[in-house]
């Protein structure tokens, strides 16, 4: 008998987003425009829990935290499979970031285990891999860290073997079957094919069911609400206008001509934020420390510029001269008025001239024991840039077994110090032992910025390490800059910009109440620097004992794609999805088109696949493009029979030109493409192939 707790979340239905949903000025979502629904992956998690229950019977309790109306997702869950439901609702819990969400949820889980499972430890917490509004994937891992239990991330299937659960999960380039060595544990679900239907009987019962309501005092969490959060949003703005052409193709020949000419021009639809002016610390700025020209928003920069001019006109040159009496005088000198409070805050902020954080800029390396993954080199490129601005060194954590040989490549790619941790128990990546050693080395050397790859590994490791060290973490950053937030006395801090709500808004986030500023970035987003094999650096061995008891699950088998693919370096990627219907079609259409492309364009052409196509067995996992596969940035991306699930779209957003063929005129991918063809790929692709041959 095992019991199950499913965490569910109410989210805005971003599939129904239209231009009307956002305030064009601020970029924020208008309240009440989008219907609220259960997070899709949480619905999958419920189905997964239901499957678990067929293998080992027990109760399913669903748990959510949010405003009172979140009760709707509990009713949804009760209408399908849940036996009971707990709503955690309290104004004090609002405004929370991921650790301040994970903590109360973990305390609620403890209480559920105590009250509803009679203190039994034989339970599993099941969550959707991530929520569609935040898509950070941090909360489940941080719940596991708070509860000091294992986290098995990206699960897709489960079975019982020799009386124990075996869970299939996604790993970079393949699948892995693992068996948890102890319960409780957290399982996050990446996808489960058969979401449950509501039954009438259950729906009726759910409507009358007395849902358990808990407030703050019922669970007494240690970290919650805005005050307990480790990050703060400083700015929300609309994403750069997609420059995707959204052109429907009616004539194949004309389309091929346009496409080839676009390809030659290298027209990039990608909307990456342009690099801003290089940051200089206040003490080295021309014109003195009153020059606060690197604030996080243009508005602030403008305000500071005015005040600096006024101060200059008044012949004020040092911070000591600023006093209360000056506030009114300054106000008179301003063209655009500022409040008294704002000026007081600025005066206070001027006193801070040194960077707020100390320590170096680090990257946590990811590798397959033979070579380092591309994302690590990309992060090193970014780290080098940030370190240069602040005059710091670049460090890399390289943990594993017999992995020291990779240190020189890391140095050549920009690292100054490689912190090497080797242990036989680190041979395979598992979150629990890895988070232990990484947190330990960070604690010892105290860097100020740490970057992780937003990969299946990084997205579980980073949140656990951040939570363990009590630090803020921003997931999936697309831009990282150094800026000041003078009014709050912050100088030389990391501005972490990321998309949210499925890429419909951008948010700039800063870390607060933390020793380290942590961020993850998706593969293909940052740019590596030129490799320089003559670079010198240090290798520092760090020792920390990994115990057998740290190993949280047995790896039963790992299945990695046999073919090697180089999706990240490809110029052109031809991808196929479930719409191609079978393996034969996939082979014929995708491979033919890829080979014709290769001849015509004389460049590196790879073939990719959607998650669904991999699940259907059309092609190996190494070809999977998307958030749970590989994020790619080719010059040309061609999607055949791929509808465009959000995870796939995120994985291709940095591609140059996107072409989509799909029979469903409403396929979401069309909105994200430059050229699209409505039609059956089996008919269209041979025409494209033939047109290219001519």
């Amino acid at each position, binding site marked *: 008998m095992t019991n199950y707790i499913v965490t569910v979340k109410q989210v805005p239905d971003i599939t129904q987003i239209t231009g009307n949903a956002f305030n064009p000025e601020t970029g924020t979502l208008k309240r009440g425009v989008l*219907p609220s629904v259960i997070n899709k992956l949480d619905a999958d998690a419920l*189905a997964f829990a239901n*499957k678990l229950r067929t293998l080992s019977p027990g109760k399913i309790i669903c748990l959510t935290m949010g405003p009172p109306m979140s009760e709707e997702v509990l009713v949804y869950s*009760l209408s399908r499979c*849940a*036996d*009971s439901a707990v709503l955690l609702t309290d104004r004090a819990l609002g405004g929370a970031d991921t650790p301040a969400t994970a903590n109360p949820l973990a305390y609620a889980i403890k209480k559920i285990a105590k009250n509803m499972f009679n203190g039994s430890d034989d339970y599993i917490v099941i969550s959707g891999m991530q929520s569609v509004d935040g898509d950070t994937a941090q909360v489940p891992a941080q719940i596991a860290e708070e509860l000091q239990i294992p986290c098995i991330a990206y699960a897709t299937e489960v079975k019982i073997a020799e009386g124990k659960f075996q869970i299939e999960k996604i790993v970079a380039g393949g699948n892995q079957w693992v068996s948890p060595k102890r319960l409780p544990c957290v399982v996050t679900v990446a996808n489960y*094919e*058969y*979401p*449950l*239907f*509501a*039954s*009438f*009987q*259950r*729906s*009726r*019962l759910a*409507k009358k*069911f007395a849902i358990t309501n808990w407030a703050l005092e019922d669970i007494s969490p240690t970290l919650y609400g805005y005050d307990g959060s480790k990050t703060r949003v400083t700015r929300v703005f609309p994403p750069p206008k997609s420059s995707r052409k959204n052109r429907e193709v009616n004539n194949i020949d004309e389309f091929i001509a346009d496409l080839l000419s676009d390809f030659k021009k290298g027209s990039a639809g990608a909307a990456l934020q342009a690099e801003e002016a290089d940051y200089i610390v206040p003490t080295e700025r021309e014109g003195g420390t009153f020059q606060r020209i690197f604030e996080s928003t243009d508005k602030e920069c403008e305000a500071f510029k005015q005040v600096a001019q006024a101060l200059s006109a008044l012949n004020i040159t040092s911070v000591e001269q600023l006093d209360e009496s000056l506030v009114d005088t300054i106000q008179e000198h301003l063209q655009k008025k500022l409040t008294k409070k704002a000026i007081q805050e600025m005066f206070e902020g001027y006193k801070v001239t040194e960077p707020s954080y100390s320590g170096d800029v680090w990257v946590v390396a990811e590798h397959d024991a033979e070579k380092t993954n591309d994302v690590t080199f990309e992060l090193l490129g970014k780290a080098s840039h940030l370190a240069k601005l602040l005059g710091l060194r670049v460090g890399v954590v390289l943990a594993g077994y017999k992995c020291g040989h990779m240190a020189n490549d890391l140095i050549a790619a920009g690292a100054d110090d490689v912190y090497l941790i080797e242990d036989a128990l680190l041979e395979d990546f598992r979150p629990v032992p890895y988070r232990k050693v990484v947190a330990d080395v960070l604690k010892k050397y105290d860097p100020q910025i740490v970057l992780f790859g937003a990969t299946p590994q990084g997205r579980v490791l980073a949140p656990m390490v951040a939570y363990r060290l009590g630090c803020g973490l921003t997931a999936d950053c697309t831009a990282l800059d150094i800026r000041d937030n003078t009014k709050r006395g912050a100088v030389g801090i990391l501005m972490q910009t990321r998309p949210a709500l499925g890429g419909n808004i951008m948010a700039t986030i800063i870390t607060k109440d933390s020793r380290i500023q942590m961020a993850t970035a998706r593969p293909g987003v940052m740019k590596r620097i030129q490799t320089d094999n003559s670079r010198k650096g240090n290798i520092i061995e760090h020792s920390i004992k990994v115990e057998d008891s740290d190993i949280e699950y047995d790896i039963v088998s790992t299945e990695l794609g046999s073919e090697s693919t180089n999706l990240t370096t490809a110029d052109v990627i031809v991808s196929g999805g479930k719409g191609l219907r079978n393996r034969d079609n996939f082979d014929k259409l995708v491979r033919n088109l890829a080979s014709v492309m290769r001849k015509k364009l004389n460049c590196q052409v790879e073939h990719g696949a959607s998650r669904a196509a991999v699940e259907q067995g059309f092609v190996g996992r190494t070809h999977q493009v998307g958030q749970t596969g590989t994020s790619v940035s080719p010059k040309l991306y061609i999607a055949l029979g791929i509808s465009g699930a959000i995870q796939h779209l995120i994985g291709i957003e940095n591609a140059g030109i996107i072409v989509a063929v799909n029979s*469903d*005129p*409403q396929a979401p991918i069309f909105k994200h493409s430059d050229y699209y063809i*409505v039609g059956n790929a089996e008919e269209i692709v041979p025409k494209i192939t033939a047109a290219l041959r001519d």
Partner: protein
Amino acid sequence: MERKEKEYTHVSILVVGAGPAGLAAAIAAKSANKEIDIVVLEKAEAAGNHNLSGAVLETVSLKRLLDESGFDWQTIKGADTLLERGVKDDDVLFFLGKQLSVNISPLITIGRKLGLSFGQMCNEGNSIVSISKLTKILGEIAVSLGVEIYTGFGAKEILYDRDGKKINGIKLVDQGLDKERNPQPNYVKGETITADVVILAEGTDGLVTEDLVAKAGLKRKNNQVFSVSVKELIRVSKKQYQLFGDNRVVHTMGYPLWSPVFGPAIFGGGFAYSYGDNEIAVGIIVGADWKYYNFNPQKAFENFKQHTFIRQFVDGGEVIEAGVKMIPEGGYYAVPRYLQQDTNGKNLNTVGYKNVMITGDSAGFVNMNKIKGLHNAIESGSLAGKVAIQCMQNPEKAAQVYTGMLEYSSVMDEMKSAKNLRAIIARFGQTIGYPLSIVGNYLPVFSMEEDYKAMTSDEFTFDIPGEYDKSTFVSLAGTEHREEQPSHLSILDSSLCIDKCDSAFQRACITFCPAGVYEKIGINTHPANPSNCVHCKTCQRKCPFDNIRWTVPEGNGGPKYKQM
């Protein structure tokens, strides 16, 4: 969660369909007795999603229903402004060709003064409403009163007890079957819901209603006939909107459907209503007894929008929503009745069967003089709701009591006043039919053929050539279904498509289906894209060989009308 099955699968009053009629029934019943459990089932994901109408509403029934509920309904968000758009300008135009229009409003006013049937087209005192919004708000009011509404559940059939004493309840559609009807791991067998009283309020051509008609042997004096309505909501420039006016309704006759003497002859007309926020609702209503094998109502609508009069208001506008539905037009003699007599030999002929009542469009309560059914749906629903409560002790009397009340209500008054209009036009055409219809009620009952029999090899000439962009239309209707489910549309005998329809009518369904569901694949006609279906059911009524059947797909599928 303990399961006490009976407790949850038996309902005192079960309403099928959360549209205006069904929700009126639920609200009226709950207002009459708070203690009795009332369940409303709806196949759409949310109440209002499947409702489309013009709509110009006669507000009397609605106001009475809500006032009698004793509930402060204006506190529901959006309810206070629901009826604010009163009709101030009311035009009836005759389109002569694609450029000319003649205002015949004075004629209607005279008709009204003389008390003639066509005078009912006057809209003074009525309000312009969005039926999707109205339904959504009625749903919220019903829930506030304690009605249980379950959306996402498709009702598939009536549970008819062979002993004939009463109806036991309904059966829901299976969920979680794959395309080949194999159960998937998440399969849920269609549940059985038993009920003391059942109120059918499914809208036009109701699946369960027709199942009851067939199983219990209800009869119609005349065949039910339909029209197909195509509607778009268009956001126009401020200037165009001001030109049109903020409280205006325009109804048109003539182009592109009918040109007296030599032109095409399809019964129907167009409309344009102010919707606020620079939005104009534009639509066309087409009698489904069109005879042209190549006719598509959407193409006609496209032509209609290009008429000089309409074009000036909508040219360059952005279509925000689009949709299609059928309207039952058969009138009084097409209402299904169970033929029976009371002990004194008096005809009861109930609109329903024992403990089942049929309301709104499912019954066919559309007044053809006004071409309005919404007020009758609300009125008949309200009556059915009250009767259900009255008959809790002897539910098998419900249909009888309901029918008795209907006969003395405004619903049947109106139905009788327009009882022959549609049939006269079907028989004599519009040129003679309209004048003749003034004395229609003194003429004998004319029979009507089912719409599908009207198809001929005549060709309709559209002014705008080319294919209609159905895929954009479908996406503007927001329609979606889970792809991996059995097709809810079936062709009974594919040899008819191949051997007969192909040569005679070039497989008309491929042309007229507004959602592009049908395709020719190989030699067969297939419902190839059932997930595009907007639930209008035109195919079921217009296939020239009566060879298509519509059943209900898994719950939550279908269009997502927001303000249609």
